[in-house]
């Protein structure tokens, strides 16, 4: 329990300190230090979860599912903090971002970490909502950090769309509470998800299916499911690169986590009704549409960050589809896919930050010949795109493979659609990648100062997850698979 409290306390304290700290180079150091401390506490908590299976009490509940995502969040938070130190320093030196904005950036960075960790560890459905909304509030000013009219527009869109979406999720939460009211207050204290899960069979199916629609639309907006994805490419392309890495790598996962948690309640409630798979079918539908639409949109992109944000929509679609399909194989694949995608995608956004700086533009037609100018950046981008395109040996390949196996088993005709979509997405990524990396470099293109260690670490981990998984992580994921699909891997 203590590990959990310390883990949550660190970013809050750090945010307070960073909000007051004037010298910005010190602030960047504090940001890295706090993230490192947070990761250490996460390891402590992870050890407890591995030992006991579940750590719960005082309104928190950490099981394998949340623990895997908490560890991922703390890890990506640290590597991105390391990256943002050099990246933001150059922004400051070039006069793009003023000193007060640097202070805002660092304080909000830690608050954002806090809201995500809170969302992942809380046991209360209402607090989960508050934390996810808090994550929007913490990041919205970071999207408009450059204060160009484009970035303000992107931030406004992000703010309004996500707030409205999340408001609908609150209505779903109220309906869930309404359904829980019939169980008696003693059975379900507050909005405790573990207690609701235990008594899910007693929740009124008609209320819960209506609640799920609202919750899915609400949290789905945040997860970037089509057609509620409109904010995502704008927010990713206009914010600073570390922010894009965090939004794509972490926030989307948190939203998806909320959807899966709610799905468990609805499944339990609908188990004996006439349509027990309603939640799964809705997830499959939304997931497949997001995946296909985003795969085709990849071809039309002209901005490198928009390209990769559509790729995030595509991957969220696949994962949502896999969770909807259910069953232990698809669920395990989805979890593996989530983790590997986060690692690979945040590595890509870091690399893209450097690439855009080398070329002096985010336009795909201006970025050329990275491999000649700066081989480290060029090769990292190739490896990263290979990872998210689903090439072996990366974890995404393993996840997609498991999903295909499960799909062929249960719904063979959907496997055809899935494969076709994967090919379209693959082509969409590589047609843009080829000239960007291998094309002729323009005259006078210079390499920039780049720390590639975090990128290599991320890609190395993503490859490791695809080949052989560390035992602790496998334990968490097996626990999560059992929780979500109600069955163990064959």
């Amino acid at each position, binding site marked *: 329990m203590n590990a959990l409290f310390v883990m949550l306390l660190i970013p809050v304290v750090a945010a307070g300190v960073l909000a007051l700290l004037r010298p910005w180079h010190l602030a960047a150091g504090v940001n890295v230090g706090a993230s490192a401390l947070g990761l250490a506490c996460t390891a402590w908590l992870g050890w407890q979860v591995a030992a006991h299976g579940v750590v719960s009490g005082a309104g928190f509940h950490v099981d394998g599912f949340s623990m895997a995502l908490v560890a991922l969040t703390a890890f990506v938070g640290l590597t991105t903090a390391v990256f943002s130190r050099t990246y933001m320093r150059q922004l400051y030196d070039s006069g793009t971002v003023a000193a007060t904005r640097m202070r805002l950036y660092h304080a909000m960075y830690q608050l954002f970490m806090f809201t995500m960790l809170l969302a992942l560890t809380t046991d209360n459905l209402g607090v989960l909502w508050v934390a996810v909304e808090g994550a929007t509030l913490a990041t919205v000013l970071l999207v*408009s950090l450059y204060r160009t009219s484009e970035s303000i527009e992107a931030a406004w869109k992000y703010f309004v769309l996500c707030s*409205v979406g999340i408001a609908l999720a609150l209505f779903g939460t109220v309906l869930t509470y309404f359904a829980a009211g019939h169980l008696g207050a003693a059975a379900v204290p507050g909005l405790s998800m573990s207690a609701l899960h235990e008594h899910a069979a007693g929740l009124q199916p008609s209320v819960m299916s209506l609640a799920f629609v609202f919750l899915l639309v609400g949290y789905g907006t945040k997860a970037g499911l089509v057609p509620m994805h409109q904010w995502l490419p704008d927010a990713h392309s206009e914010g600073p690169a570390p922010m894009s890495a965090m939004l794509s790598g972490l926030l989307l996962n948190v939203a998806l986590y909320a959807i899966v948690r709610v799905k468990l309640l609805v499944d339990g409630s609908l188990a004996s009704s006439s349509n027990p798979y309603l939640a799964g079918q809705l997830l499959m539908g939304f997931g497949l549409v997001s995946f296909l639409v985003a795969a085709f949109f990849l071809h039309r992109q002209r901005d490198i960050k928009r390209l990769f944000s559509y790729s995030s929509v595509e991957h969220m679609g696949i994962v949502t589809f896999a969770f909807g399909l259910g069953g232990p194989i698809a669920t395990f694949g989805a979890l593996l896919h989530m983790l590997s995608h986060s690692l690979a995608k945040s590595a890509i956004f870091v690399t893209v930050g450097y690439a855009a700086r080398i070329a002096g533009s985010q336009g795909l037609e201006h970025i050329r010949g990275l491999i000649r100018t700066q081989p480290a950046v060029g090769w990292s981008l190739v490896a990263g795109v290979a990872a998210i395109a689903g090439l072996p040996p990366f974890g995404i390949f393993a996840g997609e493979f498991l999903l295909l196996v499960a799909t062929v088993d249960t719904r063979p005709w959907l496997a055809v659609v899935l494969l076709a979509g994967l090919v379209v997405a693959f082509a969409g990524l590589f047609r843009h990648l080829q000239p960007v990396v291998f094309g002729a470099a323009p005259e006078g293109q210079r390499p920039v100062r780049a720390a590639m260690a975090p990128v290599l670490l991320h890609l190395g981990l993503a490859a490791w997850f695809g080949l052989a998984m560390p035992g602790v992580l496998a334990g968490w994921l097996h626990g999560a698979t059992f929780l979500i699909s109600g069955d163990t891997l064959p």
Partner: protein
Amino acid sequence: MLPSTLTFMQQLVPVLAALVLFLSFVLLAQARPLSAVHAFAWQGALLAAVTVAVAAVSGHGHLYVSAFITFALKAVLIPWMLHRLIRRLALDRSVEGVASPALLNMAAVALVIFSYWLVLPIVQHESGITRNIVAISLAVVLIGLLMMVFRQQAVSQVIGFMSMENGLFLAAVSATGGMPLVVELGIAFDVLVAMVLFGVFFLEIQASIDSLDVDRLNRLHEREDESP
């Protein structure tokens, strides 16, 4: 349950809830930002009154606290902040035309009917009151959404959003007897921070496009794949 068997307070709850819905219609019809803020403040005050009535009926003590928070936040603080922003941005004389107000009202009426239809299967075991209130609060939420879609002014969109929040709060209070206090405090805090951020954005948007007409925020869109 027949209406005559209900106590005065029990009868008061749906009446006040219906008035909240009525104010949503009033809000939808306002062309001037300042009068919209006033209507919004009245809606917040009515919401606080509903909360007090529910507290008196159900005997939940913590509802008095949330009634106080609602009144302070929705009827005083947020309207006051909006008021100040509108004066600062010199919007108090501006009139925002809506293409066809009659059609907008019809759409709102349709949304109310739709809400009633949507909650029909939910509450077969409930008394008529709960069903009415869930439907009313859903209608308030949807009308707030309608307002956000059909208004171009950033201020009106924010008022629409806040009115959606009112609908959510109405549902939480009257259908379930209030959310747990920690959740309610969290929501109130989020709403307050959101309002502050909206204020910051008004100033930034004004500085960037010299207007608060968000239809003019149109630089980012999917570009056609023309030759560079």
